[in-house]
């Protein structure tokens, strides 16, 4: 069927090197494949979320992709006003008959890259740099620490958050500085879940000859030889398949939890980093992945109880 899709990006903007950008890439792919144009809006002010989603609905957009947990309240409201409009909400859950909520098990993916970091580390110290200090990012952090400790139980995990405001997603200088301070404290692998801030982290790792791990999309190509791997979160796939299913009339409301089993999160291995990953590392990680999928290995989700035993 013919669809009129629309996307409402959140405050970071569609080039945030993170989930907004992931959605952007997904819908761009859909656009180039099907030639379907879409409307878009970047929110700049908290009060604009609802305005934007509603306006999309009013203009007859269908489906609407609403990006980010912060839009949950807006989606909840607008969804009830426009029961015929299909809304896909990414990274949060809204219980409405016309809303599809897509959330990810970031802790599972983080667990795997945590393992890789620990296996690669010469100094028995690895580190994590988050963007804004929010539970979602602590979830990454917690999964990462669990993975590292699972692979090597006497490893040290250093964690830092860039800041507590949205500017923390966009502060590469600060990210680089944090990374350097972690290297000074012995870390030789750093995982950044910090949006645009990560750019600075990777650069610092490259300058210092350490390893870095990318996030959300596959960022291995940024600095081959430095990027150990990336923890991919298939936001683009989610966005793409949401539009695709709408076009095929197979779009379904409800909650989709995408973890390792669903291939919603994973670790990236490609030509840019294959020389860094030894067969033993790969084997260990794949084994753990299988165990998690089977349910033999349970990764603790920070957001389930707002605590992280692995980091205490």
């Amino acid at each position, binding site marked *: 069927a013919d669809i009129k899709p629309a996307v409402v990006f959140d405050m970071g*903007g*569609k*080039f*945030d090197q993170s989930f907004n950008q992931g959605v952007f890439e997904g819908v761009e792919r859909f656009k180039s494949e099907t030639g379907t144009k879409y409307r878009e809006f*970047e929110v700049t002010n908290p009060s604009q979320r609802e305005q934007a989603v509603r306006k999309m609905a009013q203009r007859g957009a269908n489906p609407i992709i609403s990006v980010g947990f912060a839009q949950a309240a807006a989606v909840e409201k607008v969804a009830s006003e426009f029961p015929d409009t299909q809304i896909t909400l990414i990274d949060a859950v809204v219980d409405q008959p016309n809303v599809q909520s897509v959330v990810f098990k970031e802790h599972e993916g983080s667990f795997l890259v945590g393992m890789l970091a620990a296996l690669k580390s010469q100094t028995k110290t690895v580190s994590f740099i988050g963007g804004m200090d929010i539970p979602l990012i602590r979830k990454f952090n917690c999964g990462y620490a669990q993975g590292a400790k699972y692979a090597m139980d006497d490893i040290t995990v250093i*964690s*830092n*958050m860039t*800041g*507590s405001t949205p*500017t923390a997603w*966009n*502060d*590469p*200088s*600060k990210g*680089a*500085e*944090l990374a*350097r*301070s972690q290297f*000074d*404290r012995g870390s030789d692998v750093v995982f950044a879940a910090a949006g*645009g801030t990560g*750019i*600075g982290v990777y*650069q610092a790792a490259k*300058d210092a000859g350490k390893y870095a791990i990318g996030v959300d999309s596959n960022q291995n190509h940024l600095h081959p030889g430095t990027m150990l791997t990336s923890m991919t979160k298939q936001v683009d796939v989610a966005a793409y398949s949401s539009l695709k299913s709408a076009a095929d009339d197979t779009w379904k409301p409800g909650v989709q939890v995408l973890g390792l089993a669903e291939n919603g999160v994973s670790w990236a291995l490609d030509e840019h980093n294959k020389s860094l990953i030894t067969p033993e590392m790969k084997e260990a990680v794949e084994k753990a992945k299988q165990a998690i999928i089977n349910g033999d290995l349970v990764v603790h989700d920070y957001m389930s109880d707002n605590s992280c035993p692995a980091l205490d």
Partner: protein
Amino acid sequence: MNDALLIAVSALDATLRLSAPLIFCAMAGVFSERSGIVDIGLEGKMLAGAFAAAATAAVTGSVWLGLFCALGVSVAMALLHGFACITHKGNQVVSGLAINILASGLTVALGIAWFQRGGQTPALEADARFAAITLPGADSVADLPIIGVVYSELLSGHNILVYMAFLSVPLTAWVLYNTRFGLRLRAVGENPQAVDTAGISVAWLRYRSVICAGLLCGLAGAYLSTAQNAAFLKDMSAGKGYIALAALIFGKWRPTQAMLACLLFGFLDALAARLQGVELPLIGEIPVQLMQALPYILTVILLAGFIGRAIAPKAIGIPYSKER
């Protein structure tokens, strides 16, 4: 012992990197404010410079061309400030604010139009950035105790703009205290009538001062986007212009003291990155926000006259006019 030294050295190393843009801006502030023109617009000029540098370097691949454009754009904004405040006797604070807002909007609006990356410029290749310079002999002395570490780790290995930042301080001091231009500049900030009756044009003198400020802010901007980082990002100056302003006041409008204030604020920043989540004996964990606010708090305390007194140039902020 050696570990402690290394950590100290690395914190100081970070201090140098972090204070470099502050120092450029503070020196810019010295030129402008010592001539009697309030410069709230350090932030905006730096941001515009950062954008110009990154955009040009990304397109041409030449970091020097980028630097050149940064200087040009920043000076153009300084001239706008001068046009408003010197020629039209406008309110200097309002003009500075306008420049900051304009810069923050224009850089992103143009960036989106030109590069389609949400205001970001394309990431720069290594040769389109200012690379680290190893000072002569750094490797050979690296093994000497203390001195070797300090020289090879702390002093060596920064990019050229960091060195220029620190050179800009003696240069500013020299211009200010050892040249005819500096003498007149200081005079016009204290008593423009004295300068006028001595047969010197107040307006032209002040224009030259704000141009100097523009040049230095341009350097700060180029540092942000082509040396410290490898691209321009929206609002990447992140309040550094205001911190530099605070440092300028903290340093009582004097180059060397302003530099020390910049180093202090840079050190606080470096420390903040290292103290995050660390329990300190007796004090416990220091909130990051407190560290971030510390430069401003210190400056207010200084301004209130509780630790020494910062006396501004007498004629600062007052448009000069002959008529009573």
